[in-house]
């Protein structure tokens, strides 16, 4: 039997990375196929190829038994393929209705191509179906992340399609919003629409998928039929080994230890519930929450990137004032940012220059940096962190994600860190490098450094943290410790529910 959509032997490589290696995918009409895999497994790349965003190096795509060439987004749309991207791609300067219908506005006025005002009614219909409660006239820049995500979904729903590809649509949705989305997906299935669904939330997949395709490191790792879709089975195929082998952080913190860092009654927004927490020496504190729940903003406030409206920060019991990144760095509080390419690294500069960036004052004399100054320090760091680079003068932009992350870390280890805040430390990093990063964090903790790890990867939170803080709507929703830490308890806090005592 031939499938409705079939992708055969798809290959795609990026500089320094084989993203997809002879990957096969097939799906039937009215089927919900979940595609799972770790970050960097190639899911998004495969979906982008099917959506016409990028072109494969080789391979064949068949639709209804016919070979098709999906060279561009308009072509994909013509074939009836709609793609909801993982990242938000919205024109924030336009209103909701304009975004939903961008590129396919209902028109009148013939050659004048005026935009028909019924756009707002049409938008309203879709928005209500999705439970997006705002005006279609509202500017997208004023929406919350969850609402933006819904606009992105509404946009795909606005036109006729036979295949809907959803790349982590629920990443920033509340439980309610997600539930509603599943309802819509099921209704689409009834109408014989094919859905390709990517998510990290394996629970969701158990709930709605008809079949699961697992990718690992750009290869097909296996398939699960409806009856086999179980959390453990998926994880086994995703990581390629039993879950037990997953990194385990040695919990060795003394509960009685004096806090290393204490944040008291901190606010970075007006009308915000003050945030108070502490980190003990050698402790890895995980911080969970939905995207947009304020985790990154909190980290930025503690490290002086954002003005602190109220609150105090104590380091070893001593009140320190942080009003700029320089203050935080002087105190030994460092941030390894979420978007390392944008905020962590100077991409066109060399490995050496990046590592030394925060320590130039210590190396230079009177502002002049000796030509080979710091070479030995950089060499040490590269060895200690096993940074794989052809030379110290390699442009950092050409390194793999894992090595880039280590360069960011090396930059801070050149100074004397006391607290390091990791924001999504393993996003887009392959499994092997992930383990190395975890080991490094463990190493740092062993030296008595306090670590705050912000992560959307529950697996990671579960296995690396000594203690977990959960954020919801820019406030601390709760704190979990020991055996209270579970996927369910975290999600409940993150979506605004209270943990059953």
């Amino acid at each position, binding site marked *: 039997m031939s499938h409705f959509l079939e992708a055969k032997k798809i290959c795609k490589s990026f500089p320094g990375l084989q993203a997809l290696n002879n990957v096969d995918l097939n799906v039937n009409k009215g089927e919900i196929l979940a595609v799972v895999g770790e970050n960097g497994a190639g899911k998004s790349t495969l979906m982008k190829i099917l959506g016409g965003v990028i072109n494969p190096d080789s391979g064949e795509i068949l639709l209804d038994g016919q070979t098709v060439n999906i060279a561009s987004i*308009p072509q994909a*749309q013509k074939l009836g393929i709609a793609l909801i991207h993982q990242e938000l*791609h*919205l*024109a*924030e300067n336009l209103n909701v209705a304009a975004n939903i219908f*961008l590129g396919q506005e209902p028109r009148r006025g013939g050659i*004048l*191509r005026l935009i028909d005002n019924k756009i707002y009614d049409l938008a309203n219909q879709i928005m209500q179906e999705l439970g997006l409660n705002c005006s279609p006239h509202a500017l997208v820049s*004023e929406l919350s992340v969850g609402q933006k995500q819904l606009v992105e979904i509404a946009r795909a729903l606005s036109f006729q399609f036979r295949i809907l590809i959803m790349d982590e649509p629920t990443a920033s949705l509340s439980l309610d919003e997600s539930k509603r989305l599943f309802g819509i997906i099921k209704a689409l299935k009834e109408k014989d629409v094919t859905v390709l669904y990517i998510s990290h939330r394996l629970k969701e997949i158990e709930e709605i998928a008809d079949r699961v395709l697992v990718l690992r490191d750009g290869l097909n790792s296996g398939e699960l039929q409806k009856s086999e879709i179980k959390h453990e089975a998926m994880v086994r195929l995703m990581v390629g080994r039993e879950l037990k082998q997953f990194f385990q952080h040695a919990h060795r913190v003394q509960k009685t230890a004096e806090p290393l860092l204490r944040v008291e009654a901190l606010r970075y927004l007006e009308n915000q519930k003050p945030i108070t927490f502490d980190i003990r020496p050698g402790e890895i504190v995980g911080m969970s929450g939905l995207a947009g729940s304020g985790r990154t903003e909190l980290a930025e406030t503690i490290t002086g990137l954002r003005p602190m409206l109220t609150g105090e920060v104590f380091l070893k019991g001593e009140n320190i004032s942080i009003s700029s990144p320089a203050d935080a760095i002087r105190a030994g509080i460092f941030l390894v940012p979420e978007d390392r390419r944008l905020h962590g690294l100077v991409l066109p500069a060399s490995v050496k220059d990046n590592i030394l960036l925060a320590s130039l004052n210590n190396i230079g004399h009177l502002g002049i940096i000796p030509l080979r100054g710091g070479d030995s320090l950089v060499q040490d760091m590269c060895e200690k962190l096993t940074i794989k680079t052809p030379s110290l003068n390699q442009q950092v932009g050409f390194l793999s994600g894992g090595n880039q992350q280590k360069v960011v870390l090396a930059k801070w280890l050149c100074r004397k860190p006391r607290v390091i805040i990791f924001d999504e430390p393993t996003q887009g990093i392959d499994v092997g490098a992930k383990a190395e990063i975890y080991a490094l964090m463990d190493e740092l903790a062993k030296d008595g450094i306090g670590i705050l790890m912000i992560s959307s990867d529950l697996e990671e939170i579960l296995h690396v943290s000594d203690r977990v803080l959960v954020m919801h709507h820019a406030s601390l929703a709760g704190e979990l410790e020991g055996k209270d830490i579970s996927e369910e308890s975290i999600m409940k806090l993150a979506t605004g529910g209270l943990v059953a005592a």
Partner: protein
Amino acid sequence: MKKLTGLIVFLVVLYIALAIAVPSQGFALNNYNLAERIGQYGVISLGAALVIITGGIDLSIGSVVVLSATACAILLTDKSFGLDPMLALPLVLGGGAVIGLIHGLLITKMNLPPFMVTLCGLFIYRGVARTISGNMSKGIGNQCIELRHFLYEGDIFGLPRFLVIYIILAIIAAIFLHFSVYGRYLYAIGGNEKAAKYSGIATDKYKILSYVLCSTLAAFFGILFLMKNNAVTPSSDGFFLELYAIAGAVLGGCSLRGGEGTVIGITIGTAIMWILPNLTNMWGVPSELEFIVIGSALLLGAIMDEKLRPAAKNA
């Protein structure tokens, strides 16, 4: 519209200041002159704004103006051409469109930065204008009286013709930008080019369109310039015009990052840009102080605009 509060207040203040400074017998004449200037320079502000809305920039406007004015003068009056205006004008406007097309293609297809492409244009077109004119002023003397009458001389219902022309262009631009699919795409490209691309919009095509329109409007301005001043000196006319145009657009609410700006705002911005030098002349500010006064006043306007804007939302 709330965004424009500060600007409107500033414009009103300047106009009141003007009304006080101008002797009453010259007041009507000065209003007429000012309206004519706003109409004239509004044409290039609109052009600059179209490009700025897509997140681009066009620094070649002044040189395109000079080149088209020179070419227009040559086409109309040179012995070897001596074309009918019905033929010469489309040729000049078409030339402007071709220049914009070249800019657009270089920027989208070769991925060159707009700043560089149009800066090079700034040099090249002035050089071309000086070359084709033999580095001499080119005038239309007493010829083309009909054309001059049609575009420039005499009022329509008491309004200068340049202002009437601008009002027509502004209405077209407002429909284009605020009510049509084309304009919607220009804003989307300026706001988030990737989002526009992912929505299946041929972003390159629309960016090219914005440069074509900008250069065509600059060429049209060149014709108006020629009608008003009777001649163009390729070596010295039109300097800084692009900066006045860009300043008018930006003052009127076009963000240089793209995606923002309204025709009303652009009009107000242009009005402020040209009411200022008029006011300094009325004050009798010595030539050497003129730029200090204009610069400081613009800064004042920008500050008022910022202060009177409703509190910015949290990002």
